[in-house]
């Protein structure tokens, strides 16, 4: 081998001829293994998408979006009620979470900067960010479903809001911290009170990033199933406008139908799964493009 005699091939690059075989082998293994790991990740994502397309596309009929979920063992039907229920609960969840998350993030980045309290809240918010969502379901069950005596869309929306809030707090704070301090100082030098500086200067400079946080939160809660199991439950008919009782929603519908013995239900679950995954992946891609745009500026 070349490596045993370093002078054998003077014209070749050093790495090929002078590296001891054991070192070269270790290097090759690393290169191969890490390339394989990355390929594996891509293959899994591809396989998931392929599965959803193969199983889900055949159920994509106009009826899917207009008819409510059918009873067990029947034919036809759609998932319109579940889509609508999911939209309503996700929307209410985001409407609750956005102002709270925005203000809390503002506190961490502006008023609380450097204070002990802000440090603690920032730390606990990061923990809440990765807390198991099923625990949030248990919390909302105890706080809302038990006292109200019924499952409700409100409880579902609150559970989703609790999951969305830490995401918004975190991105808002990160984005506000990127705004250079001289901009705030310039505002203050003009005599603007602090709230005005925050609203008209920092928020404005960070607006794209804050919106990204909201989109990320939306993507996060749109597919959440565990916290809805004990709060909104599910229902096979249209829901009441007061959102009381079980409210149909996509994730729990998918869970129940996919594990049911009825082919029609399974097919509806696949179509729902395709819709929800495509929606969430689109939201995530959009959010990342907005972030990139923001950083480039």
């Amino acid at each position: 081998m070349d490596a045993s005699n370093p002078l054998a091939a003077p014209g070749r690059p050093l790495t090929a001829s002078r590296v001891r075989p054991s070192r070269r082998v270790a290097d090759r293994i690393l290169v191969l293994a890490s390339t394989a790991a990355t390929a594996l990740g891509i293959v899994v994502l591809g396989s998931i998408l392929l599965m959803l397309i193969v199983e889900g596309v055949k159920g994509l009929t106009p009826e899917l979006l207009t008819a409510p979920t059918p009873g067990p063992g029947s034919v036809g039907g759609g998932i319109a009620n579940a889509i609508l229920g999911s939209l309503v609960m996700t929307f209410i969840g985001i409407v609750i979470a956005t102002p709270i998350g925005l203000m809390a993030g503002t506190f961490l980045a502006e008023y609380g900067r450097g204070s002990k309290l802000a440090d603690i809240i920032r730390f606990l918010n990061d923990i809440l960010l990765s807390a198991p969502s099923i625990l949030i379901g248990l919390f909302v069950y105890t706080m809302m479903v038990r006292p109200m005596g019924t499952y409700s869309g409100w409880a579902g929306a609150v559970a989703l809001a609790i999951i969305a809030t830490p995401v918004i707090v975190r991105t808002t704070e990160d984005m506000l911290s990127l705004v250079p301090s001289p901009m705030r100082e310039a505002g203050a030098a003009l005599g603007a009170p602090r709230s005005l500086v925050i609203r008209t200067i920092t928020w404005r400079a960070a607006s794209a990033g804050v919106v990204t946080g909201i989109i990320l939160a939306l993507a996060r809660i749109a597919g959440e199933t565990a916290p809805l199991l004990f709060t909104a439950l599910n229902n096979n008919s249209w829901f009441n406008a007061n959102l009381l009782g079980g409210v149909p929603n996509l994730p729990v519908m998918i869970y129940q139908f996919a594990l049911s013995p009825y082919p029609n239900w399974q097919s509806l679950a696949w179509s729902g799964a395709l819709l929800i995954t495509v929606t969430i992946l689109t939201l995530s891609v959009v959010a990342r493009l907005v972030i990139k745009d923001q950083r480039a500026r």
Partner: protein
Amino acid sequence: MTALTQPIALSRDSGAARTAPSKGADRLFQGAAYASALLVLLVLAGILGSIIYGARSAFAEFGFGFLTSSSWNIATEQFGALPAVIGTVAAAFLALIIGVPISLGIAVYLTQLCPGWARKPVAMTIELLASVPSIIYGMWGLFVFAPLFARFVQVPVSNLVEGLPIVGTILYARIPSGVGVLTAGIILAIMIVPFVASITRDMLDQIPTVLRESAYGIGCTTWEVVRHVLVPQASISIIGAIMLGLGRALGETMAVTFVIGNANRLSASIFDPGSTIASRIANEFNEADGLQLSSLMALGCLLFIITFFVLIIARLLVRRAKVA
């Protein structure tokens, strides 16, 4: 929401913000920010408080025996946490064993080996794995992965190890259906990979290029640069990233519920069905009442303690990891 963003829109369009808010409005704004931040504290305390409150009768009835008992009998109202706790820890541990090397490989690939043009699309693809909802992983695991796993892993391995000591127990599938603790571990591994990989990649990217370049300059191979320069520099953050992945694996519910088989008994084989705390709660909560409901809450309490302990350590190690 509209009330909060309107001032931005107004000030952008016209000079509406020229009149400064009064001192009272300024205070009000600061108060709202303060209150919102405190709400985060309150919610976390509320979660712990409500779960302990719900679990009080189970703790009163079983005491510490709840932790060590492995019975889960609804008829006789005897409940113990041991099988679910062991299932949770076992599935999460398997997820780490499988997922961590893959995550590190991806991070090394993205920071060291990937050609420039492919870095962003590949990184994005890996990160998209993190946004796939867990219920979709559950369906993929049950309908795509489990049949393949049963046919190509469980059956051959079971035949191979049958009758052998120790491995013949741990790796023997009585009913090779594809679902079980190891399947759950593999699915969890796939779910934590994007998190651990993207945090590790960020940490590797933060290491000054000079260090890397000087190592390459004295003739190190990529493996030696990774092993002796990058890993020692980022080791604490990498452990933190792994702990974050562990936190996620411990509390993951839907995907595990699909593939773990939901058996209430303990089994020595990782091919056999089991259950985790989260899957037990998801399966039984809606039909539970009385002492069973309280016992499920007590399980939730244990999960809270385990995950928060892990997450606190993780967050202390990785001060600022990214959101998604």
